[in-house]
C-alpha cells in the first residue's frame, strides 16, 4: 500500500517502514495530442490555475507546460510574503480573495505550505507617509480587510530592537496587517502540482513553448520542444517571460522584465516575528522557520532576463537593513539571487483575454506575484472557464492603459522600474 494522502498517520506509518511507500508528488506526464486548456508556465500561477480549473470549474483535460523544472520561476525565488494591504479599489478585493484562499489552502490541497500569519508591518517615518498609510489602512478596513495603525511606541513594544534612538529617519509608526505573513514558497508550487495532478492535470516539465499555432486569429495550440500540443484555449502564466511568449502570438505587452534580488542570511535563533518593511529605504525582512533572515529591497531597475543582479543593490539593501535594525551588522548574508519580474506599466497585473481568440493572459505581477498566487489561479481559471473576468479581477483588463483606467498604487506613471 502506498501513502498518498498526507497526514500525521501516514507520516508515522512511513516512518516505520523506511519512508518507502510514498508516491511521486506529481506524475512526470508526457504531452497528449490536445487538451481543453494548455497553461504555459509551470510556476505558482500556472499550477494554481490548473488546480482551480480542475477543482472548481471541472475542467480536467488540462496541461501545464514548463520549459524547465517545475517552480523554477518566481515561485521558487521570492521572499515568501503574503499580504492584502493595498490601497486602490481595483486591487484590494483581489488580494483579499487571495489572502482568504491562503487561509484555507493547506486543507484544500492537503499540503502544508506553512502559511504563517505572523503580521506584515509597514513602517512610516514622516507625516506624509503616515497620511498615505492612514488612507491605505482605511481603504482596507472599508473593504473588510484587517488593518491597524501603530504609533511609534506600539512599534517599539513589538520590535524593540529597531533603531528608535539614533535613526536618520525616526520611526513614527506603522501600518500592521496581522493576517499577512509568509508562506513556504516552494511548497506552494509542489502542493498545487500534486493536487492538480491528482485531479488529472498533466504537468509537463522540460517542455518549452517555441511557437503558437494561430489560424484566422484563433489559437489552436502551442508548438513545443516536445512537439505540437493542441488546445481549445491557451493561458499564458509566464511571469518575467510573458513578453517573450506573447511575442510568439504577435503581441506586445505593457510590460518590462526586470530583475529583483532577494537575500538570505545564515540561520539564527528567531528574533523577528513579523514581516517588516522600512519606509525610509529599500528594505524589508522576515525570518524563516529555519532561522534565516529573508530580505530584499528594490528592483535593480533595468530590463533583464538574467536572473541575477548587481552589487549596488546589494549594498543599498544592506544599508537600509542596518539603518532599520543595527543589530544585524555581524549577521552574514549567505546567498543572493534574482528573479525576473514582469513589471507592468502601472504596477498592477493583467488577467484578461488577448486580441488573439482563445488566448488568455495572466501577467504583470511585478514583484508581488507570490502573494497573489491563489487568487491569480482562481481568477485566471474563472476567465478560462467562463470567458469573463472573475468579480474580484474586473479591473485587470488589458485595455485599461488605452482607457486611462490605470491602477497605479505608487503613482509613478508608465515607468515600470519605478513601481
Amino acid at each position, binding site marked *: 500500500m502506498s501513502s498518498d494522502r498526507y497526514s500525521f498517520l501516514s507520516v508515522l506509518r512511513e516512518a516505520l517502514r523506511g519512508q518507502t511507500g510514498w508516491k511521486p508528488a506529481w506524475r512526470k506526464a508526457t504531452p497528449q495530442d490536445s487538451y481543453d486548456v494548455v497553461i504555459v508556465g509551470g510556476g505558482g500561477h500556472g499550477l494554481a490555475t490548473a488546480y482551480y480549473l480542475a477543482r472548481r470549474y471541472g475542467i480536467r483535460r488540462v496541461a501545464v507546460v514548463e520549459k524547465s523544472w517545475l517552480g523554477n520561476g518566481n515561485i521558487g525565488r521570492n521572499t515568501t510574503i503574503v499580504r492584502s494591504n493595498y490601497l486602490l479599489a481595483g486591487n484590494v478585493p483581489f488580494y483579499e480573495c487571495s489572502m482568504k484562499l491562503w487561509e484555507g489552502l493547506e486543507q484544500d490541497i492537503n499540503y502544508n505550505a506553512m502559511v504563517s500569519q505572523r503580521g506584515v508591518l509597514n513602517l512610516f517615518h514622516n507625516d506624509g507617509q503616515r497620511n498615505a498609510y492612514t488612507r491605505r489602512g482605511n481603504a482596507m478596513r472599508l473593504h473588510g480587510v484587517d488593518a491597524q495603525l501603530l504609533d511609534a511606541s506600539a512599534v517599539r513594544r513589538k520590535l524593540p530592537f529597531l533603531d528608535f534612538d539614533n535613526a536618520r529617519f525616526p520611526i513614527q509608526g506603522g501600518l500592521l496587517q496581522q493576517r499577512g505573513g509568509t508562506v513556504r514558497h516552494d511548497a506552494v508550487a509542489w502542493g498545487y502540482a500534486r493536487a492538480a495532478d491528482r485531479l488529472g492535470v498533466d504537468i509537463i516539465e522540460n517542455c518549452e513553448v517555441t511557437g503558437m499555432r494561430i489560424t484566422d486569429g484563433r489559437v489552436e495550440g502551442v508548438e513545443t520542444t516536445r512537439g505540437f500540443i493542441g488546445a481549445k484555449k491557451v493561458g499564458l502564466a509566464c511571469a518575467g*517571460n510573458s*513578453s*517573450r511568449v506573447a*511575442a510568439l502570438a504577435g503581441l*506586445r*505587452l*505593457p*510590460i*518590462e*522584465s526586470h530583475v529583483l534580488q532577494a537575500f538570505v542570511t545564515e540561520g539564527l535563533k528567531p528574533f523577528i516575528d513579523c514581516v517588516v518593511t522600512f519606509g525610509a529605504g529599500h528594505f524589508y525582512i522576515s525570518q524563516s522557520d529555519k532561522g534565516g533572515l529573508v530580505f530584499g529591497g528594490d528592483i535593480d*531597475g*533595468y*530590463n*533583464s*532576463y*538574467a536572473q541575477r543582479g*548587481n552589487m*549596488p543593490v546589494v549594498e543599498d539593501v544592506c544599508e537600509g537593513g542596518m539603518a532599520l535594525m543595527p543589530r544585524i551588522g555581524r549577521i552574514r548574508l549567505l546567498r543572493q539571487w534574482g528573479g525576473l519580474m514582469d513589471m507592468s*506599466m502601472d504596477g498592477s497585473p493583467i488577467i484578461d483575454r488577448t486580441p488573439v481568440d482563445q488566448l488568455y493572459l495572466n501577467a504583470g505581477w511585478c514583484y508581488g506575484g507570490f502573494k497573489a498566487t491563489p487568487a491569480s489561479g482562481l481568477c485566471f481559471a474563472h476567465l478560462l472557464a467562463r470567458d469573463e473576468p472573475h468579480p474580484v479581477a474586473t479591473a485587470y483588463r488589458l485595455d485599461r*492603459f*488605452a482607457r486611462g483606467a490605470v491602477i497605479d498604487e505608487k503613482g509613478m506613471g*508608465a*515607468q*515600470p*522600474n519605478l513601481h
Partner: protein
Amino acid sequence: MRIHCPYCCTRGVEEFTYRGDATVRRPDLDAPEAAWVDYVYLRDNPAGPHAEYWYHAAGCHSWLVVRRDTRTHEIFSVQTASEVSEA
C-alpha cells in the same frame, strides 16, 4: 554593470538612472490615440539586444542610448541620446 559614458569614461551602474526602451518615438500631437498608447505603454521587452535610455545622473547629466543584451548584461555600444535623435 559598468556603462561607458562617452564623456566620463566607464562608470558603475550606480551613477546612472534608467528609463527603458529607447526605440520608441514620441508621436505627433495629432497622431491617433493608439499611437500614443503604443508609445507610452507597449514595449518589445526583448530577451537579447535592447536599446535603452540611461541618464548619467551622478556624472555629466547626459542621456545615453545603450545597446545591451538583457540576457547577459553585456553592453555592445553607447551613444548620446542627442546623437541618436539627431541621426
